[in-house]
């Protein structure tokens, strides 16, 4: 069975599409899918502390912060990237050293760190994440929880080289 049955309509559409892309220069070679880099969110860097240590868990845990780290452009997963995480939790304010910790992305670009339950502060239950190493441009994210009763939160990084 042939998947393509050209008739007058498909032929005209294809010719038209080819003309539009060809003439207007919309055909960009070798960029089948382009993934834009993450932008630092407003307030994302608030109460950031440089150099938080990589830890197995922040405090007593019970809440999961997770996400992915990918490369801008082709979206390839980035392994071994250090992501710093902090928030106002049941164990401390954002500015407290004990509320800060870092983790590394795995071979699939996935990171996951257990931390104390995030509680609403400054009007919203939210977390902070930072990519602050040298290889790519720094990015600070500030995801907001849909419900303050949630026990997990996600944030995704798309990094562009410096």
């Amino acid at each position: 069975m042939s998947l393509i049955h050209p008739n007058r309509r498909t032929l005209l559409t294809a010719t038209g599409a080819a003309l539009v892309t060809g003439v207007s220069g919309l055909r960009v070679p070798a960029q089948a899918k382009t993934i834009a880099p993450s932008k630092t969110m407003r307030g994302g860097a608030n109460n950031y502390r440089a150099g938080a240590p990589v830890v197995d868990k922040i405090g007593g845990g019970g809440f999961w912060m997770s996400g992915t780290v990918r490369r801008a452009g082709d979206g390839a997963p980035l392994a071994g990237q250090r992501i710093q995480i902090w928030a106002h939790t049941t164990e401390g304010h954002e500015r407290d050293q004990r509320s800060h910790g870092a983790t590394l992305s795995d071979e699939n670009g996935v990171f996951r760190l257990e931390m104390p339950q995030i509680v609403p502060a400054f009007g919203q239950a939210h977390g902070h994440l930072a990519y602050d190493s040298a290889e790519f441009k720094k990015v600070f994210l500030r995801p907001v929880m849909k419900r303050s009763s949630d026990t997990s939160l996600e944030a995704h990084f798309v990094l562009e080289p410096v």
Partner: protein
Amino acid sequence: MQASHTKTLLIWIALGIAVLVPIVLSLNSPLLAWRDPVYIAAGLSGALALALLLFQPLLAIGALPRVGLLTGRRVHRWLGAGLTIFIVLHVAGLWVTSPPDVIDALLFRSPTSFSFWGVLAMWAVFGTALFASLRRILRIRPRIWVRVHSALALVIVGGTIAHALLIEGTMETISKVILCAYVGVTTLFALRKALRKPQKRQN
């Protein structure tokens, strides 16, 4: 406005409940366990400022039973000064808790929309306080005064209500919504009365 004892009592009880219930509930919030005293005081100052806004319009038009217009205006000025102080304490307490968040709010670049409304209302309160203190010195005509003060009052109340409703974590939701509704309704009621006969509003 002369009212019977029972009516007077009922009105004061209703106002007391409208203000005390949200304050007491905010002081019993489970979130307080994870907040420093300074942060708790900052939140409470904000809630108290909101509570004052329920009395301000009623005092301004002499609508509170057993409180005459002149006494009402005098108390209105004192509460206005108190409102200004509560706002300063609110912002100062938040600043101590998280300086960068407060700086973002004051510069109107915060990620949270309630910050915008709060800061807008704050400037309207400060503007009112300044304008009120300059009123005698500059000999501002009562008509102008009423219009400017009414416009600022609308910004203060509208901004404060939007600010309070969008925040999660300081007040209990239902009592907060009810208090905001009361504040909004009394303000509109008072503004309507104040702007309808501006020539009689000399004080």
